[in-house]
């Protein structure tokens, strides 16, 4: 961690922290890193489907914040601006590494997931799945979505951002946000019907 942490900064808002960091207060930057690192890596992992890539992109995003702290102007929420930076970094990273639309099963090893064996028999593998397996399939379903639906469903249903905030991050109208979220959910429902049914039956 660069420098020390200031315990008084825990109560400060993101906007105040970035203002302090713009005045070369490294403790404010450290506080921002602590607040956003897990949220950002979670978002990036869901978006890329790869924990290593997620960490790399998260590092790049924080470095970009460190370098270009003066680019932030207090007309939007810091989180909105920061997610926009993160999405741009992700897209450029994926373009470079050409790993877009690829899913690495090995990446789930980091999460202590068992290597999943696909069964060729008709009985669905969902029958024997525990919760970790569920997340694997859900993640796969998310990664099968196209980019615009994937990012919007992650921002809304995983990161729990508001519609207007998503609208600002992706720079699209509010109506488009709603329609895209609905379409993304419908497509997920189509890819995960058995799982949902199974879960419904269990309840």
């Amino acid at each position, binding site marked *: *961690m*660069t420098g020390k942490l200031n315990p008084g900064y825990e109560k400060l808002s993101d906007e105040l922290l970035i203002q302090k960091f713009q005045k070369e207060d490294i403790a404010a930057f450290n506080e921002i*890193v602590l607040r956003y*690192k*897990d949220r950002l*890596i*979670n978002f990036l*992992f*869901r978006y890329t489907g790869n*924990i290593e890539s*997620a*960490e790399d992109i*998260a*590092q790049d995003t*924080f*470095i970009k914040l*460190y*370098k270009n702290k003066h680019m932030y102007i207090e007309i939007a929420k810091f989180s909105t601006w920061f997610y926009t930076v993160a999405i741009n970094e992700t897209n450029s990273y994926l373009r470079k590494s050409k790993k877009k639309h690829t899913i690495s099963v090995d990446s789930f090893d*980091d*999460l202590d997931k068992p290597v999943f064996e696909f069964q060729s028999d008709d009985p669905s593998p969902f029958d024997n799945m525990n*919760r*970790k397996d*569920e*997340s694997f399939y*859900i*993640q796969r379903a*998310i990664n099968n979505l196209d980019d615009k639906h994937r990012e919007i*469903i992650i921002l809304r*249903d*995983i990161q*729990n951002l508001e519609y207007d905030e998503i609208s600002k991050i992706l720079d699209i109208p509010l109506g488009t946000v709603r329609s895209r979220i*609905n379409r993304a*959910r*419908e497509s*997920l*429902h189509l890819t*995960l019907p058995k*799982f*949902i049914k199974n*879960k*419904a039956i269990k309840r």
Partner: protein
Amino acid sequence: MTGEEENNEIRKLLKGLPAVKSGNDFLEKLDRRIATLEPERKSAKHFLKEKPGIFERTFAGVKSAWLAPALGLSAAVIFVVYLTFMNQDENIKEQKVTINKTEEKQEPNSTTGNTSSTEISPSEIPDNSEKKTEIIIQPEKNMSENFDYKDNEKLPVQVEQNSKNTDREDPASQQHKLNVEIPGGIVKDHEKNLTEEKSDDMYNDESNLLEKSPTSSNEKRMKKDKSMKTPHEKMDEFEKPIQKNIMDKLNAVNKTNLENLRDKVNK
């Protein structure tokens, strides 16, 4: 199951996904990457401190930054004032130069004999000589019978001096000089007359008027003639009335010229 219920199920599924956290070495890696950036930033700052810019150097003495605009404005005002004064001086010089040029141009055009020096240019001689020999000749016709003059004899000093000037000049004018003959047998150097008669143009300048007025030159000549008492005494005595006539006429002409000049100067 309705669409809304399905969507709610999906939402629950997505929200129920386990949160992925950063690795233990995430902050260490970030620290290392930032540490690599720091030396570049520090070196850039150091470089900037060693070599300050023009503004930093110029306003190094100014501690308060709010004075910078005022200083800049005052510098601009001083520069503008300096430029305007420079332009005024240049304009005055140009005006002077143009006035001098116009005067130089007007002088030869307006008066052929109006030169600051006593010498007459060869090109001017024939025009004046023709006119002024006529003036001279008329009174001599009456007086020539009483006076004998030999061609080889010398003229008075002043006439000689004047003739020397013309001798250097145009051979045509020399011929003209030799050809001018007064009926009474007096070969008179027309340049003697020229020096006197060129005053039409010469006296435009007041300074010239004082120095080279025909009266002053004649007086000097008369004095010289009296003191010298040369064999030409008779001739001089003979010339006196002629000269008086000439001088009267010249004076009359000069007065008019002077008046015109004064009017011009006053304007």
